[in-house]
């Protein structure tokens, strides 16, 4: 997984490129958490336009980062959620739930 990050004030923009599955999840999680050690980060945008594949392991990585940001009163925005975002639960797409509620 390749990560490109840029920070402006409390806003961190991270572009992920590669496949986000169980195999790459731990490395991705560690890289994101290193960036989130900076407690001035309040708003994280995860740009997944370069992610060619993602499964529920990737959803787990996203939800975990959402929880970290929520605990510090921050926000997570996910853009270009891959195919797995089409999954629907209780009539609502994962894509929408991740965006609005962090899928709680």
């Amino acid at each position, binding site marked *: 997984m390749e990560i490109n990050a840029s920070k402006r004030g409390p806003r961190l923009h991270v572009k992920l490129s590669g496949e986000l*599955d169980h195999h790459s999840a731990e490395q991705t999680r560690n890289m994101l958490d290193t960036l989130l050690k900076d407690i001035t980060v309040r708003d994280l945008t995860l740009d997944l336009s370069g992610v060619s594949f993602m499964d529920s392991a990737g959803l787990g990585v996203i939800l975990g980062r959402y929880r970290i940001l929520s605990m510090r009163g921050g926000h997570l925005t996910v853009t270009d959620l891959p*195919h797995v975002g089409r*999954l629907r639960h209780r009539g609502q797409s994962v894509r929408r739930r991740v965006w609005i509620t962090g899928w709680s």
Partner: protein
Amino acid sequence: MDNWMELTFPSLSVNEGFARAATAAFAALLNPTIDELSDLRTAVSEAVTNAIIHAYGNDRSAMITLRCETRGPKLRIVVKDTGCGIEDIELARRPFYTSKPELERSGMGFAVMEAFMDSVEIESAPGEGTAVTMEKEIGRARGD
């Protein structure tokens, strides 16, 4: 059965991508759409990941079998392990349930398989292993 292939590989996370690629290559014989291929790749990835994490607890010497069969426009995929088995299949299928919350799993593995495949059957016996059988008709989106 028109055609089939079977692969056995060790329970290594790097083989999740291999299983996806092999399934997609075999499924290409049925001329699937891009979305159908993505459905198959995602479902297989979930089943193989479950075997690695839950059935074998990351025992890297254990083996996983992936079998794909075509029958007309239908593709059947079987992912089989000889690991610890599932004690409560209904609980395991429940969205957001995970037996390993410490691993930051989303608990959506079986929900993903069920969403992207036409059918998902789980056969499991504690201490003996699990076989996940999934089917999907290919070409329906094109109106074949």
